[in-house]
């Protein structure tokens, strides 16, 4: 051992302190880290450290809100960002706390498991000399031989699943028993499952992915990395291994509240998609219902229906009547009444054309706000658009399909010079100003927003949580108890041999808190007495 070496002579310190050495220090640190006190501190620290993530917006939950916050509070935002307050749950300090807690946990579990293993095969300890000193005890006198009472005590203890100590010479008049080892087993199972939960979450993070896509009624989606609107992958995900299912959105049924007044008017009531799916290209088709709280599963990948809205079907022809395309364009809802914005892009036009504006399921013109929607359902739909001309994709940069990048576009004015937009109802068509052609608003369909999730840690997390709960309940309900029984033989009290008065004393010890120990001992005495009495009457 390094820490037992002699102190080097070249240090002439007058005060000679015991030197710990590197190993000694490490061992000291390990002992500190794995102590209950440190575990407790880390637990409290974990609780405190989790709170900021509920106060400030988090990138992992809602990135636009983080940007908004930083724009509104530039100085505070910058400092918060520097210390990771917008990524609390992936910040180094949060990770430090739970990693230390995990290490502490391992350092705690391993030796405890060893101790418990040995305790389970060891004999219960001997009864102490003075039983009345123990936490709880009970006594009685029985008219029976000491051997009969001892036998009854052994049976009663055995029936309570306590383990008995072997009888020793000179201690024939006592029984030592111990039970409730399951408490410690439950404790270990609980703490180990805690680790298992954390490891399973990590597995899900490393090999899991989450993607989003919007599809309109009548469209088919094939699952591939490049086809999703957004795709977030864990560090060790192989994108070519994404399950290649396909999904055709046959119909999306949405209903809104029309009866109730107040805030409930217009609240969504039904939200359900009918889809035709295949597990992989060429596999047999299957019609299924995808709803809220009712996901679909393809292998280890689940599909959830989380959003909905309207998509317009429009077609555009040029000034000579040549078709430039038919477009199914999703519009994104901006408020509870589905005031929705979107962009129709016509790259085939010469020069390119782009329409930007709003779709309103229940259109009303407000004096100040302009076009608004009064109800989320399709009562009186209208499409209000402005027309732009120029380059749709400047520099070929990727851009959102829901907005128009107008950096290199110009808004087209009507002949009287105003920029007032085009208004169309389903089935209507309008001439574009300046003989640029025609826009036909053919139809309105719905779109569904799908979230697709692959999480290999999901089932392991579930299983370890259930085991964790079982361990917890076991450790909190089972009581670890030591029970000692001693009989005293006062000799022949009366003339008749049958009238012996044997003193019975039981006493108990518990680990932790056990408010029922006294009741347990009283019941034990009662059982023994009853057994002795029935034996007597036989």
């Amino acid at each position, binding site marked *: 051992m390094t820490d037992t070496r002699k102190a080097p002579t070249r240090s002439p310190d007058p005060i000679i302190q015991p030197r710990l050495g590197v190993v000694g220090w490490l061992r000291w640190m390990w002992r500190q880290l794995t102590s*209950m*006190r440190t*575990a*407790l501190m880390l*637990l*409290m620290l*974990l*609780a405190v450290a*989790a*709170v900021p*993530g*509920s*106060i400030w*917006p*988090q990138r*992992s*939950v809602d990135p*636009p*809100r983080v940007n*908004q916050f930083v724009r509104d509070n530039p100085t505070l935002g910058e400092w918060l960002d520097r210390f990771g307050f917008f990524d*609390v*749950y992936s910040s180094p300090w949060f990770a430090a706390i739970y990693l230390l807690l995990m290490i502490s946990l391992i350092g705690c579990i391993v030796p405890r498991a060893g101790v418990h293993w040995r305790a389970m095969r060891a004999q219960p300890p001997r009864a102490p000399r003075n039983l009345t000193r123990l936490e709880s005890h009970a006594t009685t006198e029985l008219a029976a031989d000491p051997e009969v009472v001892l036998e009854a005590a052994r049976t009663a203890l055995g029936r309570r699943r306590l383990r008995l100590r072997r009888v020793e010479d000179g201690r024939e008049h006592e029984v030592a028993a111990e039970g409730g080892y399951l408490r410690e087993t439950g404790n270990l199972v609980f703490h180990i499952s805690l680790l298992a939960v954390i490891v399973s*979450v990590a597995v899900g993070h490393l090999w899991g992915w*989450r993607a989003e896509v919007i599809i309109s009624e009548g469209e088919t989606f094939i699952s591939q990395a490049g086809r999703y609107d957004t795709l977030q992958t864990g560090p060790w995900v192989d994108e070519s291994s994404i399950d290649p299912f396909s999904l055709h959105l046959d119909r999306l049924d949405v209903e809104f*509240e029309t*009866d*109730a007044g*107040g805030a*409930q008017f217009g*609240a*969504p*009531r*039904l*939200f359900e998609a009918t889809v035709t799916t295949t597990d992989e290209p060429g596999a047999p088709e299957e019609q299924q219902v995808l*709803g*809220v*709280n*009712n*996901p679909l599963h393809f292998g280890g990948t*689940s599909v*959830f229906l*989380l959003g909905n809205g309207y998509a317009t079907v429009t077609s555009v022809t040029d000034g000579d009547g040549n078709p430039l395309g038919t477009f199914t364009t999703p519009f994104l809802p901006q408020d509870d009444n589905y005031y929705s914005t979107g962009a129709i892009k016509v790259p085939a036009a010469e020069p390119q054309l782009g329409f930007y504006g709003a779709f309103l399921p229940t259109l009303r013109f407000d004096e100040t706000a302009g076009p608004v929607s009064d109800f989320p359902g399709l009562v009186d739909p209208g499409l209000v658009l402005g027309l732009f001309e120029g380059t749709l994709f400047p520099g070929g940069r990727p851009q959102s399909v829901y907005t128009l990048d107008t950096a290199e576009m110009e808004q087209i004015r009507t002949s009287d010079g105003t920029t007032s937009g085009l208004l169309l109802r389903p089935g209507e068509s309008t001439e574009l100003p300046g003989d640029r052609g025609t826009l036909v608003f053919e139809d309105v369909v719905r779109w569904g927003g799908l*979230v*697709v*999730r692959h*999480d290999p840690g*999901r089932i392991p*997390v*579930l299983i370890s*949580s*259930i085991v*964790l*709960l079982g361990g*917890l*309940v076991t450790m*909190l309900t089972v009581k670890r108890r030591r029970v000692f029984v001693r009989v005293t033989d006062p000799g022949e009290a009366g003339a008749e041999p049958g009238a012996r008065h044997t003193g019975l004393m039981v006493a108990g010890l518990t680990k*932790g*808190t056990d*408010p029922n120990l006294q009741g347990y001992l009283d019941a034990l005495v009662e059982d023994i007495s009853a057994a002795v009495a029935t034996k007597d009457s036989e």
Partner: protein
Amino acid sequence: MTNQTLAQASDIAVWATMVLTTLAMLAFAGHLAVTGTRTRERTSATARTEHRTAAGSAAPSGSSVAVLATEEPAPPPPSRRWGVIGLQLTLLATFGLVAGVALRGLSVGRAPLGNMYEFALVAMMFTLVVYSAWALRRDRLWLGLFVTLPVTLVLAAAKLSWYTEASQLMPSLNSIWLVIHVTVATLSVALFTIGCVLALLYLAKDRAEAKGQVPGWLAALPGTSSLERITYGLHIVAFPLWTFTLIAGAIWAEQAWGRYWGWDPKEVWTFVIWVVYAAYLHARATSGWTARKATWLAVAGAGCIVINYTVVNTFFVGWHSYSGI
């Protein structure tokens, strides 16, 4: 879709409950006053005796009661009449609130667990049910005031500031896991509420004893070590239930949103509460931590529940919806 008559009947039942719990509070307060004065008379008699018998070293108070019996006749045990009236009123209030919750559920044709108002109603219903069941089996008259008081306050707050018209649920809330998750959550909140009340009583009595001045209402309670044990006993029932709440919530989140855990404010606080109560249970088993210090952690846990319910539900969510504009 919602039945207005039943909804109104539910409102009336809740108002009636509040009247009953207020009356029960008064009766329980009377009980504490009577018992407290008697207990103080007995202990001050004890103290006098102790003064006479113990020359120099103070005898343990347990043994001096025995001495007292030989010297002065002990006053008769205090009347329990007020406490029993309080308990009877509480039982009526419990039925009232169970009816209020049931009528609310019938009026909307679903489990009444859809908004803050209903959540508060059900949590207080469980608090009354747990207390009543407990008090029918053990002598818990001394606890009555400290259960009916928070129940009355929470019901008043629910009526005045969180009242929501009876209505149907958003589709995302329409799940069996909502019922499982929220029912168990409210039950554990009820147990934690009573646990917190006991923790505070223990702390108050412990401090008063340390100072040497125990006011009557505290003298009427059980001894500190027994209070502490009851506090712990309640928490070890509530903690696994809260653990289950956490797991059930994650299962539901997985089905509804496609992820079992997303660190949204509600989830963060459910987790924080869990960790704080785990710390309480740990602290109790940690050498170097006194029961008093550990019990403060239980109080902190209850504080987190209050924050989770008030601040997180109103402020954080409100913030969220502002940003959408």
